[in-house]
């Protein structure tokens, strides 16, 4: 596994732990389909939330949230619909929402977490 993938994996673990601590129910991690991958699928109360996790060790290439641009958001929405189609019994009748979590810091264990709710 390349170093960057390890960082990303550690960031996703950190984000997942953060969400569970907040009482979210995690439904899926790293769900893949032909179009791409969803980092975290979770339920906050009754709302279905697709969470994109972006991890960076520093600001050398910009803030992690800057990487979630309009193109990426559009792709995440497509994936969200694909996930809902694959899991109709969970998704039926639920609102879907897109969130982003930035994990920024040299050590994933101590990195700073920023959670942006409801991307549009």
């Amino acid at each position: 596994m390349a170093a960057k993938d390890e960082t990303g994996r550690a960031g996703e673990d950190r984000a997942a732990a953060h969400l569970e601590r907040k009482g979210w129910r995690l439904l899926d991690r790293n769900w893949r389909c032909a179009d791409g991958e969803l980092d975290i699928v979770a339920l906050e109360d009754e709302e279905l939330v697709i969470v994109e996790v972006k991890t960076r060790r520093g600001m050398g290439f910009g803030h992690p949230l800057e990487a979630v641009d309009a193109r990426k958001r559009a792709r995440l929405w497509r994936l969200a619909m694909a996930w809902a189609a694959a899991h109709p019994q969970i998704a039926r009748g639920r609102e879907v929402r897109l969130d982003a979590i930035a994990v920024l810091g040299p050590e994933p264990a101590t990195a700073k977490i920023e959670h942006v709710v409801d991307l549009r």
Partner: protein
Amino acid sequence: MTASRTWSVALTGIDGALVEVEADQSNQTPDFRIIGLPDSALREAASRVHNASANSGLALSRRRITVNLSPASLPKHGSGFDVAIAISALATDGGMDAASLARTVHLGELGLDGRLRPVPGVLPAVLAATRAGFDRIVVPHGNAAEAELVDGVTVLAAASLAEVARWHGADVAETTVEPIERPPAAETTPSDPDLADVIGQPEAVEALITAAAGDHHLLMSGPPGAGKTMLASRLPGILPELDHAAALEAASIRSLGGEPVDTLVRRPPFEAPHHSASVAALVGGGSRLVRPGAIARATHGVLFLDEAGEFPAHALDALRQPLETGTIVIHRAGFTAAFPARFQLVLATNPCPCGNYGVRGADCVCPPMAIRRYLGRLSGPLLDRVDIELHLARVSVAHADLADGKRVSTDAARARVAEARHRAAHRLRDTPWCVNGRVSGPWLRQGPLALPVASRRPLDAALSRGALTLRGYDRTLRLAWTIADLCGHAVPTVHDVGRALFLKRGIGA
């Protein structure tokens, strides 16, 4: 607090409209949007604000920032909004004094390194801000001298964005940067030609002084080498100095044209566009940002059209509106730009295309139709507004020698002009006018200062003979008053009226 607001100025013509620059932060992935009819230079402010903030040690929020320029329907252009946009965007994170922002106007362009770059049009923008009741204005260091020409405002000349932010209470480390200066104003060549240089044309000099005293439009016609250009270039020197308001207006126009303005120039401007000038060059133009043309730049001064017969007819026609109203209005999609255009018109023309028609001892080679067409350009509405039509002849050697003793210097002429203008202003103190050239005709004919029949006899005779139109009658009457003012007569005498008739009667009569 996520919303913040401050102010800037959008210039349309010489009038500035205050623009409220508000910024709001929404919890979304980082984005920077500018709305409110920005042009492309203004849209690019997003990049400048980003880099300038980063290089100034100021943290721009990592969320979506929307900047709205209100009124949203007014088209805005240029880079002068950069500082206001940056400051309001930075203030969405808190850390700046909202009250201080809300009563400050920000002008200036940002460099990527966070320094403030000078912009054109600062003087009219500051004037607009003071008219709207603002007294604190942030300008780039390079525009400081220009902004300080306006009384009663606190000017903060900032070298960098960090300096502005600190002024509003932001916690930024103090750094010293080298401020960006404007290129220095072009050397104002002290070319102050003296009226005494004019040899052997006493009548022309007298006519020039009359034109200056009454603010009368002037047409000079004569062969090449008679001294038309020489005379016209000496007119600004004998005009009275501009008062504060007029000098500010003239300087505002120069500033809008992109010239560096550091001082108020009291000498009336002199504009001499070449006869190949297009309509846009004369009236001003540009598709979005409207720049003042020669007519606007000549405001409160002299517009000299040399070889007036060579100007394209539609360029000359463009003069009619400003001559009538004193302003020039340029219409563009979505807005109109108005510039002041109260100038004194001086036209010079040859008698014919070759210049020798009617000149003693010279042969004119022009066909008759060419002569008619040449002078025909000038006829009609434009010539109607000219008070003095002056014929110049070439100066003979005898004349040149004779006149040596009694030349009029610029200083002496200016004193006479000032004296005459003072008399006129005193006489017209209860009227809306202050110079003879602007007084309305009916008021002169029927108002409290109507001339007795005895003094206006030459005029009435010319009118009944058909040598004078009624409009020409009014113009001659104005001229007669100016001549009386110059001679120190309380009321024009028959002699003054006769002399006015002589000056008025030109190629058109």
